């Protein structure tokens, strides 16, 4: 099928594209793209803010995810509509870039499209709208930069307070909102432990153990990982050391054939013993080399077999095989040892140490803990909770907060959350728009209106009278832009108040990034006026699936 002609007269059809290719074009295409985006927005609308709700999503394999995180939900929705996919992408980009504000960015992009839908219907060229959007975004971002309050970095206590407040704001909407004092402290402590120049969040290990209450979660100033599979003899090893000498290996300590495909031809029965002895010697040489360094905790990425386990047990050495790579990396980072791929040339210089090593029972599992590490640029958060899905969501929330704190360490500028900054931007854009003579005036006003979606949705989710709150906010911001600059929706008090004083702080960067990417996404959707989707090549899975409509 070629293009569906809308010409009234019958004309011979010219087939340009392969049969089955779906094409849609023009304004109707634009409009249907916009509606698709709006539909996606509607799904995650209710997750915004402290009174936002969670979504429970069961995927094809029956895995259950319960989440409040915009990016996670968008990913799991499995959106196929091409225009709506852009929203998924910006949510993901926001997640990767700043880690927080994923819901608001999608919401904002959707709202921008909604506000200009009318213009598109009336025949305004999308290029004009796009230019308007870009201009508005520039203005808004500039305004955020002006307004952002910088916190003095030199004062350690001040700086820490700032970080805690930013973390708390990002936790507000999450399941852990009610325990935010507890978790903000944990998150900030964790981030502060990292190398302040790199701030590599991979160095914060998060371990999940079902059982226990959220409050039982703990931060280990070092490394913790689950006891790996052990062989007989393990229980005879000592389980606690003060100032252990740790060696990390990437060596398999097992009695086995050196080469998989090797074959030995034995002529006489007596040769048996010689070969066996040779094999034993290989492993004993390795073990003796390790012992020669004086190590008493041996960790390896590869298995440590029963022979080695018993050998170590005999010599009062602790060992753990099959330790996962990131855990081992963190051990190295914390204790100062280096992973060795061979046991030859192993010297005491390759060993690491910490204050205390012990194996401890946490919940139903036994954990290896390395605490009090000298150059700890790493730490581990052990999360507890009533159900696996529950801990997963806590982990996602903490991840968001960690990202926010990281951002806040890098740039110390903050703005007030709770819709305050959006209201202020909205006021500013409206005012600026009046001085513009072109059509863009309309577009910028539309953006100003779209920005109000954040406070509006906050009210709606909390069950407040939306219109009442928005009009109040608008009035306040118009009355005295300076004094009421940080007025937003105060969910706790169910009122309009100064959120900067209430310490609802967010890094300015989160907002700047959100506005920039939301505008980009909206522009992208608007600039598309035709979709050519070729039919899937004979995909057995796709059989019987309805054709993607326009």
């Amino acid at each position, binding site marked *: 099928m070629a293009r569906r002609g809308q010409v009234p007269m019958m004309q011979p059809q010219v087939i340009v594209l392969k049969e089955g290719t779906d094409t849609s074009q023009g304004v*109707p295409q634009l409009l*249907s793209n916009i509606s*698709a985006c709006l*539909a*996606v927005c*509607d*799904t995650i609308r209710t997750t915004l803010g402290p009174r936002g*709700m*969670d*979504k*429970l*999503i*069961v*995927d094809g394999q029956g895995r259950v995810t319960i989440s*409040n995180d915009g990016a996670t939900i968008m990913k*799991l*929705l*499995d959106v*196929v*509509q091409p225009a709506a996919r852009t929203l998924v992408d910006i949510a993901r980009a926001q997640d990767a870039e700043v880690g927080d504000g994923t819901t608001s960015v999608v919401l904002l992009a959707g709202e921008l499209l909604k506000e200009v839908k009318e213009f598109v219907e009336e025949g305004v060229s999308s290029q004009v709208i796009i230019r308007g959007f870009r201009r508005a975004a520039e203005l808004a971002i500039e305004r955020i930069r002006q307004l952002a309050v910088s916190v003095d970095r030199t004062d350690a206590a001040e700086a820490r307070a700032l970080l805690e407040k930013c973390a708390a704001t990002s936790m507000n909407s999450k399941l852990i909102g*009610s325990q935010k004092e507890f978790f903000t402290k944990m998150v900030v402590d964790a981030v502060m432990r990292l190398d302040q120049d790199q701030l590599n969040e991979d160095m914060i290990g998060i371990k999940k153990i*079902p*059982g*226990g*209450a959220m*409050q039982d979660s703990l931060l280990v100033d070092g490394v913790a990982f689950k006891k790996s599979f052990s062989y*007989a003899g393990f*229980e005879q090893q000592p389980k606690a050391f003060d100032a252990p000498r740790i060696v990390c290996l990437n060596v398999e300590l097992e009695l086995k*054939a*050196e*080469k998989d*495909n*090797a*074959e*030995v*031809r*034995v002529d*006489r*029965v007596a040769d*048996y*013993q010689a*070969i*066996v002895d040779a*094999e*034993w010697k290989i492993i004993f040489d390795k073990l003796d080399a390790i012992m020669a360094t004086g190590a008493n905790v041996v960790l390896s990425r590869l298995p440590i077999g*029963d*022979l080695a386990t*018993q050998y170590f047990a005999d010599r009062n050495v602790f060992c753990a095989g099959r330790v996962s790579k990131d855990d081992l990396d963190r051990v190295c980072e914390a204790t100062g040892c280096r992973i060795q791929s061979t046991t030859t040339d192993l010297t005491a210089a390759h060993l690491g140490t910490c204050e205390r090593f012990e194996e*401890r*029972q946490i*919940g*139903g599992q*036994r954990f290896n803990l390395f605490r009090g590490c000298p150059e700890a640029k790493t730490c581990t958060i052990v999360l*507890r909770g*009533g*159900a696996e899905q*529950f801990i997963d969501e806590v982990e996602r929330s903490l991840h968001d907060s960690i990202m926010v704190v990281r951002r806040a360490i890098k740039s110390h500028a903050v703005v007030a959350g709770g819709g305050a900054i959006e209201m202020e931007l909205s006021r500013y854009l409206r005012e600026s728009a009046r001085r513009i003579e072109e059509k863009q005036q309309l577009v910028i006003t539309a953006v100003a209106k779209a920005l109000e979606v954040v406070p509006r949705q906050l009210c709606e989710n*909390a069950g407040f009278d939306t219109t009442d709150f928005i009009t109040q906010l608008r009035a306040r911001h118009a009355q005295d832009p300076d004094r009421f600059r940080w007025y937003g929706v105060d969910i706790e008090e169910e009122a309009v108040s100064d959120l900067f004083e209430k310490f609802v702080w967010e890094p300015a960067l989160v907002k700047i990034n959100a506005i920039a990417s939301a505008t980009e996404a909206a522009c992208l959707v608007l600039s598309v006026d035709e979709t050519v989707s070729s039919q899937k090549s004979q995909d057995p899975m796709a059989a019987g699936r*309805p054709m993607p*409509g326009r």
Partner: protein
Amino acid sequence: MSAIYTTDEYGRPFIIVREQDKKHRKTGIEATKAHIVAAKTVSNIVRTSLGPRGLDKILISPDGDITISNDGATIMSQMAIENQIGKLLVELSKSQDDEIGDGTTGIVVLAGALLEQAEELLDRGIHPIRISDGFERACKIAVAHLDKVSDVIPWSKDDTSDLFKCAKTSLGSKIVNKCHDQFAQIAVDAILSVADLERKDVDFELIKMEGKVGGELANTSLVKGVVIDKDFSHPQMPKEIKDAKIAILTCPFEPPKPKTKHKLDITTVKEFEELQKYERDTFESMIKQVKDCGANVVACQWGFDDEANSLLLQHKLPAIRWVGGPEIELLAIATNGRIVPRFEDLSGEKLGSAGTIREMTFGTTNENMIVVEDCANSKAVTVFVRGGNKMIVDEAKRSLHDAMCVVRNLIVDNRVVYGGAAAEISCSIAVDKEADQVSSIEQYAMRSFARALDAIPMALAENSGLPPIETLSFVKSQQIKQGITSLGVDCMDTGINDMKEQFVFDPLISKRQQFLLATQLVKMILKIDDVIVHKTDDQ
């Protein structure tokens, strides 16, 4: 209903989400209500197994295995619940099981009761988040109150009477309460013998549970040593060995074989004879090595063939073969021996020592077990459970595990609250009182929390055949009037309501955990307003 339904300007639906028509979606209050119904159904199933007079459930697995249990976590995990919210409750009880080991039924009943109360509040139009905020506040009060009503019970290695009483409370609801005292004593002894009192750490890996059908529950015993479900390799070997010196081997009793692939070509008769001779020589030198180091018993992880077996008999070396990895380890720990990987490494000090090793024979069946007793190190113990049938043995094992967890918890933290729902009632009163001082909507949620706490004593009374409402109101009024927080539901009908006198104790951390976990789970369920389920084909 499709996941996301949109029409374009001509009213034609179009697709946004992959396989949209296969997805199933519920939103808003409808979703929350559906969750509550599911959770209530699940909690009603286990409700009747609460308390000393609670009843058991029989569960038949897809392959026809039968489990009879009173343990909440076991019942829940065997029910194979499909519903998402139901699954959450299963995990909830599993978490309690992992962490505390006891109180797995109570936690599900509490979560169910909380959701039931939440439903009423939702009907009144209160926002779900406000409800969960209220629950959270109430939970904080309740947990703080638990601390207040808790008592420290003194115990020491010599005086374990209070630990014993707590173990009894936990066993009260189980099938083994026929041999109540005996089981409680076993639990206490087992834990105390493996506990590291200084570090307050109890390693459950050192306690092994063996069960054997036959005999009766009263024959259950605690072996300060190891029980191995094996027999001596040759029927003519002695059945009992005193002052045993055990060689614990992880290598097979056969000529050593290289791990590398190898091949031996035998072309002449002479060569074959040589091979045979070599094999016999190796056997003999191995046995000699064992004998030389002074061992009189051999425990081997691998097997040996009949030839080796008869050689061992000739040399009067009783041997046990095919001993599994964990047993080998336990044996080594118990006897203070070392696991020896090859014969060359055998030496006197690597042998384990035990007072007696004997083979136990059961009834008329030809089944034997080897008991290693009076070991050099009493850190490893084995509980040997007997019972009339497999189901009872399994349930007895589970019950003992629960009781041991209780004792473990008390070693970690020796504060207790009173059982028989006394703690719940007292918390309910405390929460109700606090609720009156709250000015916001949360007040309602807090009162509901108090009512949900009342569900536990009600279920207890109901299961014990007492009039639930009367009993609850009586106990509640008595608690307020007399100001004694240890009054609870008298399930055993002894006429005494004071749980302190009845010695019904629960560890504080267990109760605290129940409250916190149940509240957090309920909060999570209340927070969901949108469910997108990917339907499988058969639905």
